[in-house]
Each structure stands twice: as structure tokens, then as C-alpha cells.
């Protein structure tokens, strides 16, 4: 079976671990437990080219206390850049990540998850801001809490990599 490494990156507290918990184990917790170091999960997904084993790297969120260890990105076939829809500053960080990934990994598949889509009343992303991203990348409005678009988004990524 084909195996593909996928790295999930973003600012801290955007919900990377929650997205993976939802996707791999179908579970969710409201409690925020920060990630320090790397966690790896695996899930097999069907694609148009047959099943793919996704090796999912949950990388610690970036902030002033911890920066992204770029050595962890080596060999990745796909990247998920995660934004917290309720914190606009995470979009700025995501843009930096995307610029870096486009330069260093031009052939890798990249998708964006605008997470916490269930918190509509607290959205801090304007339509125009997402539209601009959508011109360059595939963007999903996901919710690790409700599961909205999570499965679909990973499947689309798997298809892009196969």
C-alpha cells in the first residue's frame, strides 16, 4: 500500500491535535492541551488510485515560545495548514507557512483548514481574506468539534497526493 507523510502546521491552539483526534479516532475534547514535540498517527483512506496510508504528523503549534522545526517536514507529500477562524492572527502565521512551503516543497500537495467553523458568532476571518486564499489553495471550513468537512478534507488531500 502506498504510504504518504502529511504534516499539519499552524499557530498554537488552532486545533491541529483535535482535527487529528476527530479524523483518526472520531473523538473530540473541549479541553485545550498544548502540543510540545511531535505526535504521529496513521490512517488508511481510499482514493481514486487505491488506498493510501496517511502518516499524519501533528507538529507543535508555532508561537514566540516554540518555532517550527523544519527538519520534521522533510519527505512530506502533503501539508495541511490550519487556521483558527476565530483568531485572525493565525491567518497571518498561515500565510508565512504557505510561503515557506511553496518555496521549499513546491511539488507537495497543500490544503488549508479554516478550523472552528462551528463558532460562527466568533469568526474573525472576512470573506475576502478566505477568497484570496482560495485563489491559490483548496480551503476547507472545518470543525474538529462537529466533524464538519474533516473527513472530506483529508480525502481530498489524499487524492491530491496519490
Amino acid at each position, binding site marked *: 500500500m502506498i504510504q504518504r*507523510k502529511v504534516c499539519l502546521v499552524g499557530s*498554537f*491552539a488552532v486545533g491541529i491535535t483535535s482535527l487529528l483526534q476527530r479524523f483518526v479516532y472520531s473523538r473530540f475534547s473541549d479541553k*485545550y*492541551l*498544548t502540543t*510540545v*514535540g*511531535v*505526535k*504521529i498517527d*496513521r490512517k488508511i483512506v481510499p482514493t481514486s488510485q487505491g488506498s493510501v496510508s496517511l*502518516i499524519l504528523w501533528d507538529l507543535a503549534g508555532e*508561537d514566540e*515560545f*516554540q518555532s517550527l*522545526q523544519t*527538519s*520534521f517536514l*522533510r*519527505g512530506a507529500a502533503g501539508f495541511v495548514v490550519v487556521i483558527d477562524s476565530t*483568531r*485572525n*492572527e493565525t491567518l*497571518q502565521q498561515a*500565510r*508565512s507557512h504557505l510561503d515557506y512551503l511553496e518555496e521549499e516543497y513546491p511539488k507537495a500537495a497543500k490544503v488549508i483548514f479554516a478550523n472552528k467553523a462551528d463558532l460562527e*458568532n*466568533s*469568526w*474573525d*476571518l*472576512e470573506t*475576502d*481574506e478566505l477568497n484570496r486564499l482560495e485563489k491559490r489553495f483548496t480551503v476547507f471550513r472545518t470543525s474538529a468539534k462537529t466533524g464538519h468537512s474533516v473527513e472530506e478534507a483529508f480525502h481530498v488531500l489524499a487524492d491530491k497526493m496519490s
Partner: protein
Amino acid sequence: MGEVLPEIARRLNFVILKRVQGDLFELLEEPPEWFRLIFAPGENPNEVRVGSSSLFLDDFMTDAEDHWANERPEPLKSGVWHEFDSGDREHYLEATALYVRSTSVLILESLGHDYEVRMQLFQKARNFVLQNQTLDYELQKNDVLLHFLSTQLGPALQKIGRSLAELKQHKLDYDVLSDLNEVVRVAARQDMLVDTFLRRFSSEIVTMQQVTRDYGSAPDVIEVVRTLVKAELDAFLNRAVDLSMDSTVPPTESTKVMSHRARLDKVVGSLMHFALRRAPEGSSINMQIHSHGEDWIHVEIHESVASLSLEDEEIFENLLSANSLVRKTALSLYFCKLTIERWGGEIGYRHMGESGCWWFRLRRIKKPS
């Protein structure tokens, strides 16, 4: 010394592995329990294939092999990763690849209590940052609500009460008079509740209404803008938006303004952030400061590409109903409006063809003679 080394490693939670071939390693001593729970032995109990037991190490081996092949003397650290053992317990590990006396060595360390303490510190620090971000929003919201209560709702209720009381002087049917009396009582009660609430939060209202009029301690608007430009330069650079600043105020003139430093920082910062959010790559934003007669200082944020559509030009009049803004942004701009107007100033936005300009003006505090 050689005979105590294995025991030292065990006690420090290290496992020292000597490379045999590929990802097959030989154990140099009996490892601690956690190692056996994670890494299953091969046919030879003193050998283990690290790659097949750990996805992380399987990945790290690429860098490690390169390190050993080039016989680099310095250690190569993997970074920390989380590994689950056969009993589903979580371990925090770090690997180090070393090339020592023609031998490729892999050292695995289980980070114990110290790492958990480090994680707790990270957790606390990030919780604080999140709380701070939420607090900022909540403070602005409180400001707006208190302002609304003290300047809109309270006076409106009093006016209603007075109007209704005047109405009672006219000849009215008994039923109508009875209803009117009830409405007057309700209006008076609501007014009293609002008044009680405002007195309870009087210190917050005082803070909200703080303004510095003294030349010595008043904020210098050029210094405020300059500090913010310096602080935001990187953010603008990352977005490929050019940020600059100009002032036409002669050095002999005062640039101190009737305001409050912390809130003035907030106003200018919020307007700059909004302009940046909507600025396309390659555009520019120029902060300008001008005198307007003797009494006023103008601050302008010129955008080479207007951030608002023509329909939204009257944004400060229609903030609460502006659908083009997300809630946080609308609140932030409303806060700017309330703050500037509370200081006796004005705020607005204007289009200049393709470009646009956020502006506000504040009363100048003149130099004492």
C-alpha cells in the same frame, strides 16, 4: 568505568544502541522497561529494528544515516516526539545520532518529569496568551456596553419618563391613564436599575473616560505612531505591504494631543491592523501626521488601495449594521470611534480614487508659554 556506564545510562533513562545494519541495532546493555514496551525485540533479544517500531524513528533514520555516513563528530538530535507503548501509555522520547570511534551510535532518551514540567510551563504560557487575547476583546466590548448604557439608554429612559409624565397632564380616559401610569413606573424603575448599574461600575466608567490634558504627561502622537510603525514593520513586510511614516508638523509645534496613551495606542494599532488585513500584496500604507490650524492634529492612514468599498465609506455611522465586517472588527472600529469622540475628536474614512484614507483628529495641547 566501562562496567558502570550501562548502569548510568539505565538510571538516566538512556538506551545506547550500536548500529548493525540499516535500522537494526544492538543493545549494549539491558534497557529500562519503557524501551521493551515500545520496541519489540527481533530474533536476537539483544537486537531491535527501531524503524518498524516507531514511525518517527523510521523517518529520523534518513537524517541519522546521512550523519553517520559523513562521520560528523557533533551529535544530531531528533527533537522530542510522543510514542505510545503496548499498554497505550504515552512516553516522550528524544533520539541522538552520534558517530564515535568509527561506530554509528543511536541514543534514545525517555524524558521524564523535567519534560512534563516543561510541558506544563508551555501550557500555562499559552493559556495566558489566549486569555489575554480574549480579555482584549472583552474589555472593548465592556467599554462599548458601558458607553451605550451611560450615554444612550439611561438618558433615553429619562426622556421617556418625562414625556409620559407630561402626557398625563392631558385629559385621558381612566384606562389610558392607568396604563400610562404603569409605563411611567416601569420607565422609572429601568432608569433606576441603569443608574445603580452605572454607579456600581463607576470606576470602570472613570477609566473609560480618562483623558490627559496636561502637556507634560499627554501622549505625543508622533511618538505613538512611530513606535507602532516600528513594532508592526515585520508584520507588514511578511505581507509584502510597504509601511512608511511622514509628518508635516514643524518641530517647533506641539504634537501632544488630548487623549490617553494606552487607548491612543489601541486606536492607531486597530486602524493599522485593519488596513493591513485588507491591503493586497505590493500595496503601501503611509502614516501621516498634519497640523490643522492651531488647535488640531490630524492622523491619517493612507492606503494605496482602498480597504473599504464606496458603499462602506460611511462605515463609522453604520458600524453596527455593516455586513461586510466580522463582529470583532466592527467592535474594534466602534471602540475607536467612541474613544476619539470621547476626547472631542472626529474619525472617518474617505476614498481618494483607487486609494483610501482612515483619519482622525484630536485636540492639540499647546506648549505652555
